[in-house]
């Protein structure tokens, strides 16, 4: 009896507790249209958004009902003064990837369309009253990470002429591409530093890209008829040989021969509206994959060896002149890229650095794009045998701000800062929290003739076939291009990496730039504000390919405390990285006779082995700053490397065998 009494009290307590956990709003407040709207809307409704549409997440039951009965019942439930033009799935995806889409809840999101003269706010408040609606999102608009400075190319004699002799390809104006091979030619600026480039000179001897690597350029359109890009375009053969106006490959998109225009739907050259477009997407594409060795124009990072064998470029158009895609278009572009074979998403856009203060803010406000990113990176959607999941690379932004734009700031993405040919931060670049790695982005302040910007392909319709631009938009494709080389080389070697492994390799394939940031000024800005805040260092293609081949073991002398330099594992800036932990298995401890776990400080592992043998130790660190991102933080990405240790009787200070 006493036992039963206790259970009764417990049940009463549980009931009371469950009542307390109800919303704090009073019944009247909870039921007010405004309160319902506020409870369901996500994102900053005061930010810029697309008119004539809303993104709506329905509950599971409604999603099933729509699949069975269509969407007409939704129209019926709305007040008469709310006139909808249509309700359609927010994104299209391939049926074969249904499982991933459902797992991520992408199938629950719909696009509600109405007259763009209507108040989005009024329609949103009405739609929010439907009990079937879980969330409403205004289709918010990101922006290109561009400063819209576009300078047509004009021939300029180099001062040293050295660059022309070191470029292996016969592309006539590649001597102006310091970003590929920087010989220290002072015509790019009096403060130019030899080697402040992307490190492809020797990497090209191993690979200049392979056509099985597809890079999706989520940007303004790629001018796929450009003579230096046409040979590098991804081709959807079914659409190319199919019927115009028909979705020949049944992927949900009509006439998507080289990609798709998510703004106006379709993708034919004559339909591209170049008004207001300086050629941003075409410029970005040329940095990654302009055809090498074709005797015209520029060279590129992964544009092949001169035999038409470079990586392929997929145009995922989310900007059209002054018309900007919203969250939905960005999300659909990522999903299209995943569904149609891209393994790298090159994304030179984002939300301003002051839009979000932590990961959760972005995730809550941009649920559709966030889910699309997860879809792109889901292992089930991996598109290259060398990678267990696709990777997304973003520009950090051009607001001179001390944190990255989102979504690049997410730890799952790579955020790229910009340097000039002087190895110093470009005047515009964002830096600090959320930024992971630096790359050449150009800096016009070094010269009066703009040669210190980045030369690439452009569009003759509004500019010129070749032009200089600058921005983290230009830095970003350098990392995408190097990543594409890495995937190509890994494929050649028959190697396969998890996303985390490949990201760790990419972010540790760097040259040190902090050595230039300890003191001094550039453009009256103190350089020390950038010190250790530009990411792990400046990307270097050669280092990445060497790491893909494999990183050598480090040797320690048995019975002697040893300090092991980790720069081969964590890049030239290894001493500036924040290390998180050292993991040693019991087996490794036993093999090496370790009596304590080694520690890592300032890029040096301190270890004392008491037995001869070899074993692996995992070292984790933060790529970008001193704090990890995630949750209510904005910060770096966790990277980890397996350090192979060989304990033997002899060990020299420089790692030599004798």
């Amino acid at each position, binding site marked *: 009896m006493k036992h039963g009494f206790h259970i009764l009290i417990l049940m009463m307590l549980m009931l009371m507790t469950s009542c307390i956990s109800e919303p704090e709003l009073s019944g009247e407040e909870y039921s007010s249209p405004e309160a319902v709207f506020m409870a369901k809307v996500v994102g900053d409704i005061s930010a810029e958004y697309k008119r004539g549409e809303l993104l709506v997440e329905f509950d599971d039951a409604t999603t099933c009902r729509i699949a069975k009965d269509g969407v007409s019942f939704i129209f019926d439930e709305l007040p008469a003064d709310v006139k909808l033009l249509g309700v359609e799935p927010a994104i299209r995806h391939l049926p074969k990837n249904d499982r991933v889409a459902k797992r991520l809840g992408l199938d629950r999101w719909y696009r509600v369309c109405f007259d763009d003269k209507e108040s989005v706010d009024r329609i949103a408040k009405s739609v929010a009253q439907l009990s079937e609606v879980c969330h409403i999102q205004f289709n918010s608009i990101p922006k290109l990470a561009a400063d819209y400075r576009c300078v047509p190319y004009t021939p300029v004699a180099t001062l040293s002429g050295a660059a022309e002799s070191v470029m292996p390809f016969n592309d006539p104006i590649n001597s102006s591409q310091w970003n590929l091979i920087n010989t220290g030619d002072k015509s790019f600026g009096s403060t130019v530093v030899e080697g402040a480039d992307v490190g492809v000179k*020797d990497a090209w*001897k*191993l690979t200049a890209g392979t056509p099985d690597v597809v890079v999706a350029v989520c940007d303004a359109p790629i001018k796929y008829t450009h003579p230096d890009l046409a040979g590098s375009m991804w081709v959807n053969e079914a659409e190319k040989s199919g019927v115009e106006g028909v979705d020949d490959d049944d992927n949900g998109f009509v006439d998507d021969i080289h990609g798709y225009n998510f703004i106006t739907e379709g993708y034919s050259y004559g339909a591209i509206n170049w008004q207001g477009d300086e050629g941003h997407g075409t410029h970005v594409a040329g940095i990654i994959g302009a055809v090498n060795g074709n005797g015209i124009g520029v060279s590129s990072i992964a544009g092949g060896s001169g035999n038409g064998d470079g990586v392929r470029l997929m145009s995922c158009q989310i900007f059209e002149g002054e018309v900007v895609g919203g969250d939905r278009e960005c999300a659909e572009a990522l999903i299209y890229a995943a569904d149609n074979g891209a393994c790298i998403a090159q994304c030179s856009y984002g939300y301003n650095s002051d839009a979000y203060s932590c990961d959760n803010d972005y995730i809550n406000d941009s649920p559709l794009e966030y889910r699309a990113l997860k879809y792109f990176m889901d292992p089930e959607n991996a598109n290259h045998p060398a990678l267990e999941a696709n990777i997304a690379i973003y520009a950090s932004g051009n607001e001179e701000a001390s944190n990255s734009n989102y979504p690049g700031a997410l730890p799952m993405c790579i955020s790229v800062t910009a340097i000039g040919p002087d190895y110093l931060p470009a005047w515009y670049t964002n830096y600090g929290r959320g930024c992971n790695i630096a790359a050449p982005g150009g800096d016009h302040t070094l010269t009066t003739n703009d040669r210190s910007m980045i030369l690439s392909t452009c569009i003759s319709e509004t500019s010129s076939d070749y032009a200089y631009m600058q921005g983290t938009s230009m830095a970003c494709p350098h990392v995408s291009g190097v990543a594409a080389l890495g995937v190509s080389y890994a494929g050649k070697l028959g190697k396969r990496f998890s996303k985390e492994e490949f990201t760790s390799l990419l972010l540790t394939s760097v040259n*040190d730039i902090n*050595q230039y940031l300890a003191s001094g000024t550039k453009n009256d800005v103190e350089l020390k504000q950038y010190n250790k805040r530009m990411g792990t260092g400046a990307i270097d293609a*050669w*280092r990445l390919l*060497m790491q893909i*081949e*494999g*990183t*050598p*073991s*480090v*040797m320690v*002398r*048995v019975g002697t405390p040893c300090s092991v*330099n980790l*720069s*081969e594992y964590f890049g*030239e800036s290894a001493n500036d990285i924040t290390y998180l932990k050292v993991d040693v298995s019991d087996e490794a401890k036993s093999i090496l006779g370790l009596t304590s776990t080694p520690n890592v400080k300032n890029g040096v592992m301190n270890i004392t082995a008491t037995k001869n043998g*070899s074993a692996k130790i995992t070292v984790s660190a933060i790529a970008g700053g001193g704090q990890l991102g995630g949750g209510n933080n904005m910060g770096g990405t966790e990277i980890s490397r397996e350090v*192979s240790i*060989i304990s*033997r*009787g*002899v*060990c*020299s*200070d*420089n*790692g*030599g*065998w*004798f």
Partner: protein
Amino acid sequence: MKRVLSVLTALLLVVATSCQKEPVTEPVTEKIVGQWHCTPAEMDVDIYVEFCIDGSFNLYQKVGEGRHRHYTGTWNAMSDILSGIYRDGSKWGSSYKVSFSEPDTMILVSQNGSNETMTYTRETIPSDVKDGSIVVRSIFKSDILPVL
């Protein structure tokens, strides 16, 4: 005359003595000169070394993964003890007692107390090892200079 003969005899003795020193060092040095290969048992290591007659050496080592790393420096053999210094100024981790079990087999035993013993066989360094190696200048910054 007797005095002259004595001086000549003394000179001959000096010459003979000095010649006697050569067989101790010269054969070891001559034997060391050349290209050698070492693949220690139970270690993922592949070592090629070239001891040049001018006293320089080229060491191509592959320890674990990756391609061979190319170290350079100078070597010296005093009696049967081999020692050296790397180009960046780092001393070898040990000197080694040298012996030869056969003309083409060299055994190096470390002299730092560990008695680590490694066997080297005379072998031409493959061109792909030489050409594909990475020059190591120093363990510290900018340590890797690609040579491809």
